[in-house]
């Protein structure tokens, strides 16, 4: 049990090291930093001096280690485009993305699981079939089209909700939140639906197929043969078993919400890290790209670890805490 968790932590560390290598390689080999910092009028001496101060003459491994050391301390260098420390820009932007992702994640999880269970236990019902058909359209609808559609409906035609920005935000000691003002909450509605809908569809389809699988098992038949009510069979017995495989995939889905936020943030001009990343790609702002990559991988790895722990909590076979007989 402990060994399992230690192994997972070790694997996570390797993933982070690999991502760090990619990020470092971006720095080192894509868009020469000397070019970026010195501009057109430069002498060979300038170049040499800068190479020395930046440590570019040292062996690759040493440079990599130094880069990691800096990154751990939150130092990702200066943005080529904005001329400010990358860490500062990221800190400023992170709350917007995290709030959006959190609301979307809650939406996706609650509706995804609810509808998945519903369509599984009413598998031949009209409503369930209608939902399944709609969900295929949902999977085929690119996120940005959903956003545009919602903007058209609720901003352009009905004029109910804002189509861009975060609305009014409150600064809580460096963390800007949109949860505390009416306009901030209004501004959250369309982007979070846009971002959550695709994940919701995926979670729903997954829960449905896992649940159908579980409903076919012997212990469900046995639960029915013992005269348990449908409610107990579906929710006490089936749903819990469905959750074991669902948790893994759902964890990954929630991680990808942060990545998909890039698209939603672009559509709604939401001032988060995703929009920052897109702009960084457009202008080849390597330090921002590298920092974003590192930040997002830490989040993914963290989510994966939490998922593993949840897994152990749900499934007693992995826990090994019951008295083992025979």
């Amino acid at each position, binding site marked *: 049990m402990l060994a399992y968790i230690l192994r997972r932590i070790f694997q996570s560390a390797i993933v982070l090291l690999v991502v760090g290598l990619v990020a470092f390689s971006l720095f080192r080999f894509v868009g020469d930093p000397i070019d970026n910092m010195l501009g057109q009028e430069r002498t060979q001496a300038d170049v040499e001096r800068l190479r020395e101060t930046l440590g570019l003459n040292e062996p690759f491994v040493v440079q990599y280690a130094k880069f990691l050391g800096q990154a751990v301390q939150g130092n990702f260098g200066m943005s080529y485009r904005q001329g400010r420390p990358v860490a500062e820009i990221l800190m400023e932007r992170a709350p917007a993305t995290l709030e959006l992702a959190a609301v979307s994640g809650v939406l996706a999880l609650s509706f995804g699981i609810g509808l998945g269970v519903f369509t599984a236990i009413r598998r031949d019902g009209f409503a369930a079939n209608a939902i399944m058909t709609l969900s295929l359209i949902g999977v085929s609808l690119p996120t940005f089209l959903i956003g545009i559609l919602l903007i058209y409906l609720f901003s352009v035609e009905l004029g109910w909700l804002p189509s861009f920005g975060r609305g009014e935000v409150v600064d809580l000691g460096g963390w800007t939140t949109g949860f505390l003002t009416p306009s901030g909450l209004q501004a959250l509605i369309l982007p979070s639906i846009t971002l959550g809908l695709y994940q919701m569809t995926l979670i729903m389809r997954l829960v449905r197929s896992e649940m159908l699988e579980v409903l076919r098992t012997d212990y469900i038949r046995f639960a029915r043969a*013992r005269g348990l*009510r449908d409610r107990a069979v579906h929710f006490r017995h089936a749903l819990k*078993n469905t959750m*074991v495989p669902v948790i893994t995939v759902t964890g990954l889905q929630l991680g990808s919400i942060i990545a998909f936020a890039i698209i939603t943030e672009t559509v709604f001009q939401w001032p988060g890290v995703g929009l920052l990343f897109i702009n960084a790609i457009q202008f080849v702002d390597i330090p921002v790209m590298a920092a974003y990559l590192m930040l997002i991988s830490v989040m993914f790895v963290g989510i994966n670890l939490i998922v593993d722990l949840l897994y152990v909590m749900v499934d007693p076979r992995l826990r090994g805490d019951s008295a083992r007989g025979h």
Partner: protein
Amino acid sequence: MAPVLSLRNLTVEIPTRHGVLRPVDSVSYDIVAGEILGVVGESGAGKSMAGNAVIGLLNRPARITGGEVWLNGARIDNLPPEGLRKLRGKRIGMVFQDPLTSLNPLLTVGDQIAETILEHLPVSRAEARERAIAALEEVGIPAARDRVDSYPHAFSGGMRQRVVIALALCAEPDLVIADEPTTALDVSVQAQIIVLLKRLCRERGTAVMLVTHDMGVIAEAADRVAVMYAGRLAEIGPVADVIQHPRHPYTAGLMGSTPGASQGQARLTQIPGAMPRLDAMPPGCAFHPRCPRRGPGCDIDPPPVRAPDARAACHYPLTVAEDVTA
């Protein structure tokens, strides 16, 4: 004595793309209180399907299309789903084949027994737990009080089947349907489980439908035996009579091919051919293409299910003079 369970011309049909299949065809038999009726036949003979039909757990699209099922003098095949559910577990207990898959892996065995008791009997939660412990003790689980909170994975296969039997009996049913209860177990454990089932049912006067393909189990446990072939009842009678003096040619063949069932024989014989598939049933008696005794009329009329004074559904049954072990 009035029978606990009474089947009257029970017929189950499955509509398919290629026509209607009839896995159970006009089957009639009774089981009285305290009696163990063995139902034997090859796989696909309809023996399990009849058991599922009795408790109303046929998998769609299979359904009862004819005949009646009576439990303690009340007809139950036409009950609404909710009425049938209340019977399951309370009046009819069920034991499935594979104890490894019959128990929900995510709930403790105590919870699974207690929830069944709470569903059917007017007792408190604490009382249900005490009864669960008592039920575990009764089926011979050592240190039941300590193990009531263990998960199924902590028990061996034989112990799990004891738990399954405790579950089937915990609400004091009048009838237990045991569907191949020993097939998935180690040979050394099989006898223990059969002895346990037999003892508990004798003590409580519970009627048992013991479905199996194993003549050894029948010989060990059953009072009477019903032989099924291709969905129809071939022969029914007291165990000793059927084994030693079979009247139906199929039963005779079955005894000839079972090791130990007929001591007088030096070697095992086998029935040529295989049981017909449900979508390719021959006209007349389903056994006639393989039957060594077939005569005029066998391929035209299905023999009457139970001719007066005869146990076998056969036009040309074996006579006393032909008994294998005379």
